[in-house]
């Protein structure tokens, strides 16, 4: 009977079946490829959104873990000594977006004598060496670390931190990732921040005009200002300078309210911010760092832009100036930024 022959033929040829192991591996590999391709298409499709996002500067501080509440009655953790470098990353984007870029980076240098704070802007297209990836722009280092489609801000922070540390040859002792909502919350929690602008800034996002001079901004307006670069004479660099101005205003505000020195106030502020805050306190702790900041913040901070040159190829990048760069790096590494800043007044930012 033909039916029986059919059954027999099928049974005989079962032996042709390939083993499942390699097939399984091939499937998984193909899935990864297909997902990547989908993502690329999606990214291309949202190119406009990316451009818009690139206009958005400041994003957020991403802590390694939720900021711990400080138990009262416990002895304060040891206060760090020596010079400190704190890396603050402002990332763009919003909840649910598939990728984040670190478009604002501020290296806060605290000298060993705690005389003042140095706010060093690192332009978002600063060329850094990403461990395992080679040279890339700073904001992409964050993207590579954070990954897609569910950005991990802590990993983004760590990869960026390592890349910056490698490139500048300095140790980064602590840091944080700031998102828009966090900046908004932080600003509102301290009752607004006074920012002093040398020139008027018009928001391309909201049409709001920030006049030249000092003004107190609430959370929403601060984020709006920190995102602006289009229309500014120096574009990204001017936006970075405005971030320094905002940081200086925030420090003044914290100082006025004795936030640094009152553990209760620090505690409540951190708890207020804790959701979504990525903070890396390094070997130290947040309260200890707050004390250090308090000491150093009594004097007016100094805003600095590293001396750099623009490179057009393969894409627009910022590299340290071959002539002035080594001197700047040396000053940063050996804790002599004050001397360097006085010798190079052109690199300083007017903060007030």
């Amino acid at each position, binding site marked *: 009977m*033909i*039916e029986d*022959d*059919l*059954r*027999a*033929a*099928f049974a*005989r*040829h*079962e032996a*042709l*079946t*390939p083993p*499942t192991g390699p*097939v*399984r591996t*091939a*499937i*998984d590999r*193909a*899935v990864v490829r*297909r*997902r990547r391709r989908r993502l690329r298409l999606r990214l291309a499709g949202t190119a406009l959104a990316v451009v818009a996002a690139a206009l958005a500067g400041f994003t957020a501080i991403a802590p390694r873990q939720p900021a711990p509440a400080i138990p009262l009655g416990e002895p304060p953790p040891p206060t760090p000594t020596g010079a400190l470098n704190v890396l603050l990353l402002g990332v763009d984007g919003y909840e649910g977006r598939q990728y984040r870029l670190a478009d604002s980076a501020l290296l806060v240098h605290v000298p060993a004598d705690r005389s003042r704070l140095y706010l060093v802007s690192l332009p978002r297209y600063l060329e850094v060496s990403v461990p395992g990836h080679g040279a890339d722009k700073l904001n992409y280092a964050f993207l590579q670390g954070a990954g897609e489609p569910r950005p991990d801000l802590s990993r983004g922070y760590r990869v960026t931190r390592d890349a910056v540390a490698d490139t500048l040859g300095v140790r980064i002792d602590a840091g944080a990732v700031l998102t828009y909502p966090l900046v908004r919350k932080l600003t509102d929690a301290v009752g607004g921040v006074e920012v002093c602008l040398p020139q008027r800034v018009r928001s391309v996002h909201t049409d709001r005009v920030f006049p030249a001079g000092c003004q107190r901004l609430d959370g929403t307006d601060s984020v709006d200002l920190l995102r602006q670069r289009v229309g500014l004479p120096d574009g990204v660099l001017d936006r970075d300078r405005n971030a320094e101005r905002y940081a200086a205003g925030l420090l003044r505000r914290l100082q006025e309210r004795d936030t640094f020195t009152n553990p209760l106030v620090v505690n409540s502020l951190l708890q207020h911010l804790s959701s979504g805050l990525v903070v890396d306190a390094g070997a130290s702790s947040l309260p200890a760092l707050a004390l250090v900041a308090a000491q150093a913040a009594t004097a007016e901070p100094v805003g600095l832009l590293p001396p750099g040159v623009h490179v057009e190829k393969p894409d627009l990048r910022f590299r340290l100036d071959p002539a002035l760069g080594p001197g700047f790096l040396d000053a940063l590494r050996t804790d002599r930024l004050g001397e360097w800043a006085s010798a190079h007044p052109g690199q300083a930012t007017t903060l007030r």
Partner: protein
Amino acid sequence: MTYEEFADARLGALLRYAVMLTGDPHQAQDLVQETMVRVQLNWRRVARSDVPERYVRRMLTNQYVDWRRGSWARRVLLRAEPDDLPAPADHAQSAVDRDQVWSWLSRLPRRQRATLVLRYYEDLPDAEIAEILGCAVGTVRSCISRALATLRAEYVEVCS
């Protein structure tokens, strides 16, 4: 059920089914791989169905039936491989070599071959075959009888 559990349990059976459909281990692998990639990417939808395995079998069968011409080139090429050819001496002496049945299967339209595999290899009832192929039960039956008729005609040719 997760995709991993499903693959652990069913990947072997799907590969065997694909071998019966395509008659060729490499093509079977391609077919299963292509299907399972889509299964994994859309696992939530697959898992929501009543019987995920039947859903996947249906995907795989459709993929096979709709497979485009591109794969024909490969198929013809593979047919020329020596171990796929029946030994010429065999059918002279006996009624019909079983491998001969196997090679006749490859000349059937794919849909007909699929119905034969589902009935005589997977031993599924007509209703389930109809569901997998997305057609009426009556269509399944006529499909099978036409396929069997074709094979019988080959028999007659060889045996006469």
